[in-house]
């Protein structure tokens, strides 16, 4: 123990050099850009996946062909989202070494093994079975389809579990010791159990899972609402809307009152300076207010905001008189960029409060009018939910990550001490621009293709989806073997 990272003094903290163009700042910007863009997709993989499991299960239970039709439609969207997730996910793994080599050397024993476990366990499960799901959509019976969907979705969640585990370790590190070796100080794992289950892990995992399922149900809700607005695919859209609105509303309520609240309590317990930045709380005070919207003037050290008096004290400590620590309790060099964290956090919670409201109103109107003739404004609001949910989720991620600054590993290693020493400002500037251009291209193509798929809509169903398709792995392999033996595959040749 005792081998610390001092960082580079003024450059690290809140000095004037913080925003100048140096490899550290540019690398942070590049990481923020690439992770934010990547993080659009995995929540859809999980959330839409859960919706698809539900649809596949309904099809097994009821045999109602509309659920088969829905599965075959959504799997196309799923494939697109998944491809984007893989393409941008590789970048994340590479960047730890590329831009943060000192970090990688220091944490490889601990953090690296969680990433590797993710790769070995989960990513291959997804990647491997995704092929079965995407290309076997019209070759599999309803039970087999359900099995394939469950496996892919399980893989997506299992994958996220390891990543969130690794991130939680950076937020609330434990289960390791520091020693200096030939290559400088390194963190060595001493207890895998504590590394895996850090105090912030479970609240974070559940918070992110629920957020992802909200995004998935919001996507289904948005697309169905759009079809209803355009009066297309009415049967399909009605059934999908009806399923999605229930899931979305229930999750939105649970997120506010249970999972989001638990996450806030965890930050209160383990990362007090982060909580102070999130609420723009400069001075330790009793009866601290919970803000809804505001602006932090960092130079004047003032927060101008409207909110509910004493509510933060109550939510954090269960008492209106409880003292909530402010930034004044901590040295200035350990403060995060306060206004940025404040804004990100409030975008998230304001939307978080809005979602149950949207859900309850939409569900009520839907119920009163029995799914017929919904008002246009309500459909437009429903269409907006997926975009709002994505914004809220990414804002939440920003809160967690920017709120952790100036630490890369909380209270252990400063971000300034983590950057690759071999990089020049020009290198990172150029790679940042490259990523910005590449991702702009990806975003345009993604939206273009998503739009096409949605405009194209679900296909009419064929009879054979109901019968004679394999329903177990054994049947699947037997059919393949027979097709091979007879030299003829069961598929007709259908050019696109």
């Amino acid at each position, binding site marked *: 123990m005792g081998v610390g990272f001092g960082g580079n003094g003024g450059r690290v903290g809140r000095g004037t050099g913080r925003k100048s163009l140096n490899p550290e700042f540019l690398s942070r910007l590049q990481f923020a850009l690439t992770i934010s863009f990547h993080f659009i997709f995995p929540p859809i993989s999980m959330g839409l996946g859960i919706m698809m499991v539900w649809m596949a299960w309904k099809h097994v239970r009821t045999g109602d062909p509309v659920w088969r039709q829905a599965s075959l439609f959504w799997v196309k969207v799923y494939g697109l989202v998944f*491809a984007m997730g*893989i*393409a*941008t*996910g*590789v*970048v994340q*793994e590479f960047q*730890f*070494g*590329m831009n943060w*080599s000192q970090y*990688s050397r220091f944490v*490889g*024993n601990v*953090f690296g*093994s969680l*990433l*590797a*476990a993710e*790769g*070995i366990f989960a*990513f*291959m*499960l997804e*990647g*491997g079975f*995704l*092929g*079965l799901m*995407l*290309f*076997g*959509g*019209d070759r599999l019976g309803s039970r087999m389809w359900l099995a394939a969907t469950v496996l892919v979705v399980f893989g997506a969640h299992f994958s996220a579990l390891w990543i969130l585990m690794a991130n939680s370790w950076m937020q609330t590190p434990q289960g390791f010791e520091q020693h200096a070796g*030939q*290559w*400088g100080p390194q963190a*060595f794992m001493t207890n*895998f159990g504590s590394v895996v289950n850090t105090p912030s892990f479970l609240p974070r995992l559940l918070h992110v899972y629920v957020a992802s399922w909200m995004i998935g149900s919001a996507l289904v809700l948005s697309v169905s609402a759009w079809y209803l607005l355009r009066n297309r695919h009415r049967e399909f859209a009605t059934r999908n809307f009806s399923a999605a609105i229930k899931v979305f509303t229930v999750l939105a309520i649970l997120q506010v009152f249970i999972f989001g609240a638990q996450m806030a309590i965890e930050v209160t317990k383990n990362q007090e300076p982060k909580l102070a930045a999130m609420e723009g709380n400069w001075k330790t005070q009793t009866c601290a207010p919970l803000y809804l919207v505001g602006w932090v003037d960092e130079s004047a050290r003032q927060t101008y905001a409207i909110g509910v008096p004493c509510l933060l004290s109550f939510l954090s400590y269960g008492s209106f008189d409880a003292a909530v620590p402010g930034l004044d309790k901590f040295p200035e060099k350990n403060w995060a960029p306060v206004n940025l964290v404040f804004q990100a956090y409030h975008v998230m919670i304001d939307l978080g409060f809005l979602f149950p409201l949207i859900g309850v109103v939409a569900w009520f109107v839907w119920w009163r009018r029995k799914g017929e003739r919904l008002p246009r404004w309500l459909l437009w609001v429903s269409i907006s939910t997926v975009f709002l949910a994505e914004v809220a989720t990414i804002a939440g991620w920003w809160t967690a990550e920017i709120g952790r600054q100036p630490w890369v590993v909380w209270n252990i290693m400063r971000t300034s001490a983590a950057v*690759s*020493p*071999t*990089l020049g400002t020009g*290198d990172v500037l150029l*790679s940042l621009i*490259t990523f910005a251009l*590449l991702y702009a*291209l990806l975003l345009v*193509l993604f939206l273009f*293709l998503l739009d*096409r798929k949605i405009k194209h809509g679900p296909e009419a169903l064929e009879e054979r989806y109901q019968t004679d398709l394999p329903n177990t792995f054994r049947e699947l392999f037997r059919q*393949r073997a027979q*097709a091979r033996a007879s030299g003829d*595959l069961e*598929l007709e*040749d*259908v*050019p*696109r």
Partner: protein
Amino acid sequence: MSLADLWFVLFVAIIGGYIVLDGFDLGVGMLHPFAAKEDRERRIVLNSIGPIWDGNEVWLVVGGGVLFAAFPVVYAAVFSGFYWALMLVLIALILRTVAIEFRGKRESSRWRGLWDTVFSASSFGLALLLGVAFGNVIIGIPLDKNGDVRLDSVLDVLQPFALFLGATTIAMLLMHGSLYLVAKTEGDLQARIRRRVPLFISVFTLMAAASAVWIAVSDYGVIDTFTDHPWTLVFPIAALVAYLVMIVMVRGGSDVLAFFGSSTVLFLSVATISAGLFPNMLKSSTNPAYNMTVSNASADSYTLTVMLVVAIIGIPFVLLYTAGVQYLFSGKVRLTESSY
């Protein structure tokens, strides 16, 4: 054999697996605009790797993760030191994914032609980069005492031997990809590719032989292992045997076996180079004292043990469903509604 040695072997096996699996994807990508004449053929070629290419690419991600965990200082040195090489890899990987996903989404021949070019160019680029990377590892890199790579300029990476190994890798993957396509296609398309196979094999043979001679006469230190521990000669000898078997199978028209032959050749080539490097993982061209070896660069035994448990649980599943999915989609390519 220590835990670190075991993880070196596993890492080499993962990289070997990646080269074999994504290798034929890359070969197919390079051949795509040349072997297939019209759109229908190009779709067949693309769909030969359609259901499996992303699963294959995951092996690279796993390899990166394993390197990060088991040999963190090597991961940190290589990824930061060869920043621009890695950027190019990422750009090529992303563009290849985009091209595969997006080419079939519009009918227009300009649209498809554009993505065909991107698909092929990114595949060539990745093959070249893989070879250049291996080349640099063999030559040695300017590691300093902190474990950082101090390149004076990007051009340091492009030494003649590394470039030659890059070209050799292109030839190797053209051979590998063409054998894969012969096994996956039929009719005119298959006949056209089959006619090119002997050319690819000959070019690869000449270049691989030249690379071997280049390594033998240069002072790269790779030969020492084989003279010090003659048993390691089993890798190059087995590679040679696999090569001869492949030739026989190609001549005999056993398409699937010929492809398995070239897969074995690729895997054993990676094993041969790795055995030659052992116990070094990265050689410092500045000072041998800064070499990163399997023992001084590895994670500690606690981490390696945890990882071993993960691998023992995880890897059988990985192999099982890799094999399962490959089997399900084996046989000749037919285009269906869900094809690219």
